[in-house]
């Protein structure tokens, strides 16, 4: 398992800890995605606040990964999260996806479009 994707939106500490632990165990590169669905968020102040939060969460995970000597790549994208995840899974040849089962996502769509991959809900 050389490439793992962590969907960071709504990820709890235990979701992040699991992703880091797996990346460390398998010497994987950890891709960390924070997405902002601009079409759904009309309030500019809220969008601004979410973008701030997103980057801070990303760099917080990066800091933890660095301490554990885990290779990490931060990804911040605007768009529909299901579509972004599908595209990233393909383009970076991701083998495992880790996300919070309570994340604001169409989980069924993600599972159906990534049948060959390992999907860990935590």
């Amino acid at each position, binding site marked *: 398992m050389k490439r793992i994707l962590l969907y960071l939106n709504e990820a709890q500490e235990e979701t992040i800890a699991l992703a880091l632990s797996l990346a460390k165990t398998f010497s994987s590169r950890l891709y960390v995605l924070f997405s902002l669905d601009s079409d759904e968020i009309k309030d500019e102040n809220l969008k*601004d606040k979410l*973008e*701030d939060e997103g*980057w*801070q969460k990303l*760099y917080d995970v990066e800091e933890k990964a660095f301490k554990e000597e885990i290779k990490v790549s*931060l990804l911040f994208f605007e768009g529909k999260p299901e579509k972004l995840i599908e595209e990233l899974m393909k383009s970076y040849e991701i083998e495992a996806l880790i996300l919070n089962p309570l994340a604001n996502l169409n989980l069924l769509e993600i599972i159906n479009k990534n049948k060959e991959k390992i999907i860990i809900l935590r």
Partner: protein
Amino acid sequence: MKKISEILLKEGIILDLKEKEKIEVIKKLGERLISLGYITNSDEFFGEILKRENLESTGIGMGIAIPHARSNAVKDLVIVFGRSQEGVDFSSLDGKPAHLIFLIAGPEDKKSEYLFALAKLSKLLRKDEVRIELNKAKNEEEVIAIIKKYEV
């Protein structure tokens, strides 16, 4: 928390980077920090920043790279900036060379301020108009004025 324009050092702005390799650029910017008196132990500082570069890409795409390090060898949270006309390969995920390179250095005990600065700068540089204006800036004063203009 301090604004980016408050921690970006005017004396730490280099608008005509000639270095072609990532490591050379980091050393050039790091040496500027040393000459300005912000680094107490250059070996420790370069060790930290280069270790991070080996583990991850600090090229965040769109022609931007933000190499960074938190270390006891750094006296205060500061940013230095270099601009490369030719661009430097920072192994960005979008495959594009970095033209705007911001190096952030902070002391070990300023974790939240350091993460805040990284987040604010990354967010700021996603704006097309900021990158366009920074690429055109004629001097150090203009660089700081652009950052001030766009940061909220």
